[in-house]
């Protein structure tokens, strides 16, 4: 997998690149701000861009804006956004428009190599990934009339793991149940969220979107 890394803090960039190289990922370039990142993506057409949300000049949402542009202009490049803060709104705004090929993780999470690699692979294959801490907050935020409120504890757990980009096999392993059981929990979950079977639409992505819009 070919990846570019964008973060304005040099030491973080260096740490991230080192982790990625350890994981067997090919780092084809690094950038310290959004403009440099966009030039790099245009040049290298990487599989995934790993991008810090806050970059110069305002340190607000430059990374987010760049992510949007990348997804529009280079559909084959996925974007994994890293953030220092828990801000569900960021994730929501972003994923509402272009759910596929995007991920959003807390920066400190990526030092867990397994999570980083899984997120990169998911994003690269057009799925979406949302940080577990944000998913937990969204699930806690109960709104009346939301179908998420009708889910059983097991279905909520499954949805939460799904939002973190886990496959059925990984969910089964985590919950200590069989993969067949996970499949039937998913079927029930999709039914409750009113997501019809449709070969063209990724129901897992839609289920996560339902959660974000709750």
């Amino acid at each position, binding site marked *: 997998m070919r990846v570019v890394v964008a973060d304005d803090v040099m*030491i*973080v960039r260096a740490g991230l690149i080192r982790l990625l190289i350890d994981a067997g990922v090919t780092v084809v370039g690094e950038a310290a701000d959004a403009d440099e990142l966009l030039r790099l993506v245009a040049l290298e057409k990487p599989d995934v861009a790993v991008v810090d949300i806050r970059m110069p000049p305002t340190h607000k949402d430059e990374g987010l804006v760049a992510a949007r542009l990348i997804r529009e202009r280079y559909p084959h490049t996925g974007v994994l956004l890293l953030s220092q803060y828990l801000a569900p709104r960021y994730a929501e705004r972003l994923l509402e428009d272009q759910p596929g090929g995007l991920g959003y993780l807390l920066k400190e999470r990526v030092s867990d*190599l397994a999570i980083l690699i899984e997120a990169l692979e998911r994003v690269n294959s057009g799925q979406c990934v949302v940080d577990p801490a944000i998913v937990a907050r969204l699930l806690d935020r109960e709104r009346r009339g939301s179908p998420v409120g009708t889910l059983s504890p097991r279905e909520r757990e499954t949805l939460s793991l799904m939002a973190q980009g886990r496959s059925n096999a990984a969910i089964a392993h985590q919950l200590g149940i069989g993969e067949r059981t996970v499949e039937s929990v998913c079927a029930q979950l999709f039914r409750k969220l009113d997501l019809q079977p449709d070969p063209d639409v990724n129901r897992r992505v839609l289920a996560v979107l339902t959660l974000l819009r709750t």
Partner: protein
Amino acid sequence: MRLVLSGRAEPGQVLSSLAPAGLLALENARLNAVGLVRLAEVQGSQRRIVEATDLERRRIEHDLHDGAQQRLVAVAMHLSSARQRSLSGASDALIEGEAQIREALAALRRLAHDSLTAVLGAEGLEAGVEDLVAACPLRVEVQLALNAGPLPQPVQMAAYLTIAAGLDNVAAHARTDRAWVSVVQEAETLIVRVVDAGPSGAVVGRGLTAIADRVGALGGTFDLASDPQNGTTVTVRLRCGS
């Protein structure tokens, strides 16, 4: 003052009897004006103190973000990398080191008030309130009715901090797990309410006292009402016109 004049009173006499009262009224008006000027001066200096505090807070937050937090994140990454390469004996210590860094990062985030200026700056009050409520251990119902267009930053900050301190106060003292938050803009006034259904006898923590000072400095009002039937209500009114 009321004066009853009889038909036979001499105009001169009437005037001389009014003179002391008139002087008194003039003196009162003068003192009143002096008082208003002083009040405006005090409010101005209070406002400048709050602004200076906010500026300092942003500076500290920025330093934490660019300094300590980023360094810790980088160290965590290097430790993780070291653990991948290490022999099994060394990895226990490395795992412990990583766990401690995660805790340090969480503590730093709380210190920097989590997403305060990041979210308020980039996304406005609405998103800030949602984040606050999402992070709060209480069950909170929220009503938001804001006009289009951004609020002045000091007003946003005061409203956000009112809700933060109000919810903290409920969690610490109210012996209930339910609260209601409303932020309503009516013409030029922003009304912020935090209500709980706990037993009466609100304890006002230091957090809320600081809020009352901040709100006062912006020329707003702060009210706290508590009764056995309705729990405790904090109401803050802020002028949000230019």
